[in-house]
C-alpha cells in the first residue's frame, strides 16, 4: 500500500514537471500574448497542482498530514484563471495586436483602447 502511494506520488510529480515544461515551451513558441496566455494559465495550473498533490501524498505516507498543500491547491485553482483573464484584458486595453493569422475579432470597436502606451 505504501509503495503504491509512493509510485502514484512520483508519477504525479513527474506529470506536473512535464506540464510545466510544456507551458514554458508554449510561452516561447506561440506567436502573440493571447495564445501564450493559453499555455501559461492552463498548463502551469495543472502542473503546479499535480506537483503539490504528489508532495502531499509523499509526506502523507511518512505520517505528516500537511493540509496547507491542499489549501494551496484550492487557492491556486481560484486565482490562476483570474490572473490569466486580467493579463489578457490589460493587454487588449493597452492595444496589443492579435496575431496576423487571427480569424476574427468581435471585441473590436466595443471598448476604448489606449494606443499611446505601445
Amino acid at each position: 500500500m505504501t509503495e503504491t502511494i509512493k509510485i502514484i506520488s512520483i508519477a504525479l510529480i513527474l506529470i506536473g514537471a512535464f506540464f510545466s515544461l510544456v507551458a514554458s515551451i508554449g510561452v516561447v513558441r506561440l506567436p502573440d500574448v493571447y495564445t501564450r496566455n493559453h499555455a501559461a494559465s492552463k498548463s502551469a495550473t495543472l502542473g503546479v497542482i499535480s506537483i503539490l498533490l504528489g508532495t502531499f501524498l509523499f509526506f502523507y505516507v511518512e505520517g505528516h498530514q500537511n493540509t496547507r498543500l491542499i489549501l494551496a491547491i484550492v487557492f491556486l485553482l481560484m486565482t490562476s484563471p483570474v490572473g490569466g483573464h486580467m493579463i489578457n484584458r490589460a493587454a487588449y486595453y493597452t492595444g496589443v495586436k492579435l496575431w496576423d493569422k487571427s480569424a476574427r475579432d468581435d471585441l473590436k470597436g466595443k471598448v476604448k483602447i489606449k494606443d499611446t502606451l505601445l
Partner: protein
Amino acid sequence: MAFQILLNLFIAFVWMFLKVSYDPGTFIIGYLMGLGMLFVVRRYFRSRFYLGKVWAAIYLVLLFFKELILSNINVLKIVLQPKLDFQPGIFEYKTILTKDWEITLLSNLITLTPGTLVVDVLENEKEKILYIHAIHVPDAHEAIDGIKNTFEKAIMEVSR
C-alpha cells in the same frame, strides 16, 4: 439553502441534548435524522431540498477537473505540433446568467476549458456578454458552445 443547513444543525444539537451524550457519533446520527425530517417537510421551504444543490456543486467540481485535464492535453498538442497552423480569434458569447458570482464562476470555467480564455465581460441593458479568445476559431465554435451550455446548465442547477 443556508437556512436549511442551519435548521439541520439545530436538529442535530437538539438530538444531542435529548440523548445527554456529546460525542461526534451522536451528532452524526442527529444530523442524519434531521436530514430525514427536512426531506419530509421539504414542500414548506421556498428553495428546494438542499442535498440536491450539494450534489450539483460536487458535480460542478468534478466537471471542472475533467475540463482542466482535457484543456491541458489540448494545449500540449498545440504547443508540440511542428507547424503553428491554427487560427486564433475573439468571439462573443451571450450568457443567460445574471448574478455576479455566477458570471465569475462561468468565466473561470471557460478559462480552464480546452482552447478558450476570457478577455472581457461587457454588459448591455438585457444581458452580459463574454468576449472569449479561442485558440482555433473555425472548428472550435460549435463544440465550445456545446460545452458552455453544459457549464451554464450546471451552474444554473447550483444556483436555482
